[in-house]
């Protein structure tokens, strides 16, 4: 038997990982839906910022594509305006922009029109030569979700899924609108791309604090021994928004809070909080553990839905003296809409570590403030030696609460009891705070910057895999099915409040109450 020995690519002798930002290989990024909001607000500002910070290869190019007819120069002009408007915590530099803009190109085209893909191939060939992108291409589907399958099949038809370098595709959420459609979409994608080439983006996983959960849990030995049913009473995951649907009424009416937030973002956050430690910190092992956790979540029986899940919809309210419309009064929303703008679910995880520990997950629009956090409520000490003085008299306290704040102020705080100074054994809860922004003064990269660099570098750790997506649909599908056949008495909470009363009742049945974050 003879073996072909291929020389290994040489390591860059000038690389300095201690001081230089992580390198990504040369590539072209093709954005479908380039004239859309996501491109303008997130993708181009993130790419510019990465370029400004020299975190992407100088040999890169961006090819925008959408139906709007535009020249390269016009596209550059539109994107310049977007980048200067939407750049977060960073300066806009005219000179750097000029350099960046040399790598921006535009191919007008319709996803349904095969000729558009021929134009795209020509442009890719041209930038491969002019910008030395080494044939590497990252496709970014930032289009209407209903076009995903079609666009991917066309890429395959035009042989754009193969080339001299690697080919990868990033797909935005929602990934399907239910379990069946997600499976169908996966099947379509796999006709063209291998699973290893598919990057399903969930920008929550790109947030620094969500990544920090892994460092916090598995980089420290003091918390992990407590991270189980023996010490944890329950977990609350909250993603509250103070805004309404903000002009996205038509989309939101079809999606709803459960689909829009819990099926994807919050189930992934829950998996990160509850997963087992991976044996090695690499994309396969981390994602295996996340997927395993999601598969361990108990799938509700239809008869359990009413006691384990709550739907809500905001009605009109008054905040700060300002009248706010109800969901049904929002533009493009049906007057008798049955869409959930609030959802709360009690998940149970059937594994050795978490059996019997409820994971309460809630999300909603028009809640009192914008906050996303995870609260681990530890059990009370076995013997209540100390009580806390309250207005209504002494009360036993459950002091130990660990809160991981994801937004707006990323950080971690641990609450514990301490003796109040002075005579007598009076105790009060105090808090130990770690604030991400103040402890690490450097600018935190946005989730999209992190995720784009990861995709270019071929690191899918923070992307969701097919089995994870399907497992997360599996756990919300029974709720969606029951709700689809229910008639709710909406609205059931006023704008500016913490959601419907039934949500409080869901926790009260277990002797728990929602925190006020």
């Amino acid at each position, binding site marked *: 038997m003879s073996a072909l020995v291929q020389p290994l*690519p040489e390591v*860059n*002798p000038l690389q*300095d990982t201690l*001081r*230089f930002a992580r390198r990504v290989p040369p590539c072209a990024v093709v954005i479908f839906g380039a004239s859309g909001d996501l491109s303008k607000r997130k993708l181009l500002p993130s790419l510019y910022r990465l370029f400004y910070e*020299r975190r992407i290869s*100088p040999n890169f190019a961006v090819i925008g594509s959408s139906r709007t007819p535009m020249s390269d120069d016009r596209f550059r002009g539109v994107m310049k305006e977007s980048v200067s408007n939407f750049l977060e915590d960073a300066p806009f530099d005219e000179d750097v922009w000029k*350099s960046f803009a040399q790598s921006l190109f535009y191919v007008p085209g319709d996803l349904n029109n095969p000729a558009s893909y021929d134009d795209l191939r020509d442009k890719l060939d041209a930038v491969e030569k002019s910008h*030395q992108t080494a044939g590497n291409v990252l496709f970014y589907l930032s289009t209407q979700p209903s076009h995903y399958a079609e666009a991917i099949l066309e890429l395959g038809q035009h042989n754009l899924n193969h080339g001299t370098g690697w080919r990868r595709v990033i797909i935005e959420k929602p990934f399907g609108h239910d379990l069946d459609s997600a499976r169908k979409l996966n099947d379509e994608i796999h006709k063209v791309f291998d699973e290893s080439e598919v990057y399903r983006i969930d920008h929550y996983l790109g947030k620094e604090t969500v990544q920090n959960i892994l460092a916090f849990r598995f980089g420290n030995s003091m918390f992990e021994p407590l991270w189980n049913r023996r010490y944890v009473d329950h977990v609350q995951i909250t993603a509250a928004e103070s805004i309404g649907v903000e002009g996205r009424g038509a989309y939101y009416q079809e999606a709803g809070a459960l689909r829009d937030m819990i099926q994807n973002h919050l189930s992934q956050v829950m998996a990160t909080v509850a997963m087992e430690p991976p044996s090695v910190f690499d994309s396969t092992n981390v994602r295996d553990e996340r997927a395993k956790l999601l598969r361990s979540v108990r799938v509700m029986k239809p008869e359990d839905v009413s006691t384990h899940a709550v739907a809500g919809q905001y009605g009109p309210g008054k905040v700060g003296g300002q009248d706010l419309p109800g969901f049904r009064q929002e533009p493009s929303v049906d007057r008798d809409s049955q869409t959930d703008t609030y959802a709360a679910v009690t998940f149970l995880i059937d594994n050795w570590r978490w059996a019997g520990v409820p994971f309460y997950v809630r999300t909603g629009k028009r809640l009192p403030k914008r906050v996303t956090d995870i609260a681990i409520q530890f059990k009370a000490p076995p013997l209540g030696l100390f009580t806390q003085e309250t207005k209504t008299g002494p009360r036993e306290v459950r002091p130990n609460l660990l809160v991981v704040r994801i937004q707006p102020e990323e950080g971690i705080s641990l609450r514990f009891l301490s003796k109040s100074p002075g005579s007598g054994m009076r105790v009060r809860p105090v808090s130990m705070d770690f604030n991400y922004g103040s402890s690490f003064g450097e600018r935190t990269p946005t989730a999209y910057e992190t995720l784009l660099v990861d995709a270019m570098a071929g690191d899918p750790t923070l992307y969701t895999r097919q089995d994870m997506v399907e497992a997360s649909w599996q756990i919300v599908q029974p709720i969606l099915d029951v709700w689809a056949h229910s008639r709710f008495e909406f609205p059931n909470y006023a704008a500016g409040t913490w959601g419907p009363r039934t949500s409080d009742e869901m926790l009260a049945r277990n002797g728990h109450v929602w925190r006020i974050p």
Partner: protein
Amino acid sequence: MSSAVIFPAQPEQILKGLGKLWTSLGEEEKQHGKPTVLRACAMTLIVATDEADRGFCASQTISELMREHPSRGIVLSVSDRAEKSLEARVLAQCWKPFGKAQQICCEQIEITARPESWPNVGPTLIGLTAADLPVIFWCRHQGALNASATDDQKAGLEAVMNIATKMIVDTSSLDPQWAFDLLARWQAQGRLVADLEWTRLTVWREPLAHIFDNTARVNNFSKFHTVEIAHTGEYPAPSVLYVAGWLSGPYRAHVKFNKEEGYGAGIHRITLRSDAETIEFERSSPDCMTLRSTNGRERKYSYEEAGPAALMTEELSVLGPDAAFSAAFRRAQELVRELR
């Protein structure tokens, strides 16, 4: 916000002073009814300065550094104007992140020593370092680094170096041969040494290194047989020698130094030559660098002169050995010998 109290330089008294300082900050908290101050410390940072360094505001720099590297800062000022042989004051450096109610505060201790007392400062410093955290010594006392250093200065320097995990100097104003010999001697003693002249190069090194991330290019790296460095100033500064060492080290490329007019001190242009391609990286204007290749590519980068706080911010992120620096330093030592 900061407050200050003067003490004799006895560790116990200084620590007591710090304790009182925190108690007084806690009083403010009590009045506000909620936490208003967060105490932060990730290292002890000792900064030694001398008379020649009077324009440098250590407090200001430490307060800039604390945003990324909160520390217990100890500023050691050696001055023959000092009234007592050793005295100290403590203060808190605080900043309030934008939009936040809580201030982040770091402790700062300022010790003033007469030159003859400097060798005795070691025991005081040992008692003042934050427990279980790295001790970084930033020596801005140029007199002690010079060939003409007095015995007291040498002994004083030694006293502080002995408790430091890492020593940071800036050789930009020193004779390169002397500076490299000094650093080599410390390295031979097993000390971890960093030079801000190397840190200044990151802005040049990173874009250059980036070029060779391309597989085709990296395979051709060994073919770049000549490295030319155009520098301002009469002789190549340590930074010029470092960058030459860094680029020529891996494959022993031939090095040429040329004196040219340019913007600011140090490197003006770096040229890499192979038979097939020439790459030039030049400071083309005071705030811009241009990277050109004979294959037709040109790219501009913004250039910002890094001040002491920016350089230290980077250097404090590297608390362990720095392999790239060590390799460049070895080759730079050879180059400086060849120049003589």
